[in-house]
């Protein structure tokens, strides 16, 4: 008996050691792309273009960032994204919480029908072209309203919110009714304050989606003054539009190049998310778990 015990522990030790090494390898593989962009963005282009920058930066300088910040429209796009995120999340939360609350109450007339109506859209939706044409019909092309109101509810988030409201004890609500409160009051004065964790989770989900939203912004907006950052990023780092003209002759003395400018733009674009990340992480874990249990 004692012998087999020792055997297990020795095997476990090997196992644990292997798992630690596996963990370190996975972490490096996952993190390296971001790390590379970071060191390349601060390096002298000649080293980047020759493949000398691999594990640490070489020829430290800020020139690529100066160039990146001078790109046409980058500040406007940043401001627009900020606006779409803040206004968008406010609208998201209003539409999502009110509907989720109503659907979470058993006494709502035709509750099952309305719930099914919302859930059904997770499995079947009109698709790209009919949705685009609906925006056209509503005269919402090239308007900020299209971006903000057109995507006011995400059904998945609605379901998370609804299931959270359902978990709040009924007795609280009944007591409030006896005290003469109406539905609106119970919702705003009792349920919303009690739902802070869920509000934070769903709010975070929406904020990340809003900040990173690109496809519909690209198709619905034409005016350069209205486009969010992601649409501009597509031009700069995917299509490389603005860099095509600066012929890519990189000499030993160049302090920036199309490539290093792209890397610094990437860093500028992901910094807000990286700052938000530690705060967001714990909420995301909760939200993903709630969503999956319900899913």
């Amino acid at each position, binding site marked *: 008996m004692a012998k087999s015990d020792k055997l297990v522990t020795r095997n476990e030790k090997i196992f644990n050691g292997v798992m630690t090494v596996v*963990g370190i390898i996975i972490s490096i593989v996952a993190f390296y792309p*971001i790390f590379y962009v970071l060191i390349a963005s601060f390096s002298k282009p000649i080293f980047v273009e020759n493949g000398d920058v691999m594990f640490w930066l070489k020829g430290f300088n800020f020139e690529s960032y100066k160039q990146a910040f001078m790109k046409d429209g980058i500040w406007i796009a940043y401001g627009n994204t900020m606006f779409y995120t803040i206004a968008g999340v406010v609208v998201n939360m209003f539409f999502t919480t009110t*509907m989720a609350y109503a659907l979470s109450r058993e006494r709502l007339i035709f509750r099952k029908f309305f719930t099914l109506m919302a859930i059904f859209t997770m499995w079947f939706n009109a698709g790209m072209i009919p949705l685009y044409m609906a925006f056209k019909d509503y005269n919402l092309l090239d308007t900020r309203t299209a971006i903000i109101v057109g995507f006011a509810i995400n059904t998945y988030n609605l379901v998370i919110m609804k299931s959270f409201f359902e978990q709040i004890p009924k007795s609280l609500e*009944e007591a409030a009714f006896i005290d003469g409160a109406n539905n609106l009051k119970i919702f705003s004065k009792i349920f919303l304050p009690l739902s802070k964790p869920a509000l934070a989770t769903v709010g975070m989900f929406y904020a990340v989606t809003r900040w990173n939203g690109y496809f519909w912004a690209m198709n619905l907006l034409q005016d350069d003054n209205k486009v969010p950052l992601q649409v501009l*990023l597509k031009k700069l*780092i*995917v299509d490389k539009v603005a860099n095509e003209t600066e012929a890519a002759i990189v000499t030993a003395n160049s302090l920036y190049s199309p490539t290093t400018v792209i890397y610094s733009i990437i860093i500028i674009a992901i910094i807000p*998310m990286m700052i938000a990340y530690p705060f967001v992480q714990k909420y995301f874990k909760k939200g993903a778990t709630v969503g999956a249990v319900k899913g």
Partner: protein
Amino acid sequence: MSKTSKALPINNRSYVKSSSKFSKRFRRDWDLFLLLLPGLIWYIMFAYKPMIGLRTAFYDFNIFKGFSGSTFVGLDNFIQFIQGADFTRTVTNTLMIAFWQLVICFPIPIILAIAVTEMKNKVVSKITQTATFLPYFISIVVVCGMTINFLSPSTGVINFILQKLGFEPIYFMVKPEYFRGVYTTMTLWKTAGFSAIVYIAAIMGIDQQLYEAAKVDGAGKWKQIKHVTIPGILPIVVVMLVLNIGKMVKVGYEAILLLYKPTTYSTGDVIATYVYRTGIQNGNYGLATAAGLFEAFVALILVVLANKISKRLSETSLW
């Protein structure tokens, strides 16, 4: 109306379980209905009204004339799509990319979750979770931008590494044979950590006594994983599988639009990107809507199939 609702006797139990008539219930809960209203209007405007637009698929649709000025063509758009040169290509690509996503991007997060929870060194475990979770927060535009720049034959880091290992630089983004691999790897990097969360939560929920019991019976780590962890998370795996298959056909077209080029259409062009090019870029709304409906139909078939498979799987599991 508000007067009557206030005047009604409000009494807890009968209030909740009331089976009175519609008008009476509406009068009593009109303000609850008011809360429903914004969301309801939104669903009608932005989810159900566009569905009416699906009839575009049966018209030779002219955007300036509307439905009254456009000719009804029946199934012509569908026939045109199915007989068109792009049909075989887009359907094959859609299914192939969906297949690789299922084979690579579905199981790896499960393995990752098991690995992360098995790590005895809590610091390494936390770092692994954080590092794999991070890419989820980076927008698809930036991820695609990074991919394209990393794979550049002249300045990309991947080709530098290949060259140092003695290979010739590879033109990843213009060669069709690499497209699916590039897309799948990129998707895996972006989503693996996020997808793993659900399984990590499920593993945490497994009763520790089961592991103790397995240990007493002499099970090593592998046997514990095989006989405790995997059966423990199987229900959630099945649920996630069915959910994923439903979304699978709608492969990440946003990413594909950013990554593909005319030279990689042969392996990268999927139904959704075809819909985008034909409809939004070229204004051929009827044909594009028909292709979109076809895609939805394929998705439906896959969901039904997935449900059947899950029923079989869940018979062997406990629910």
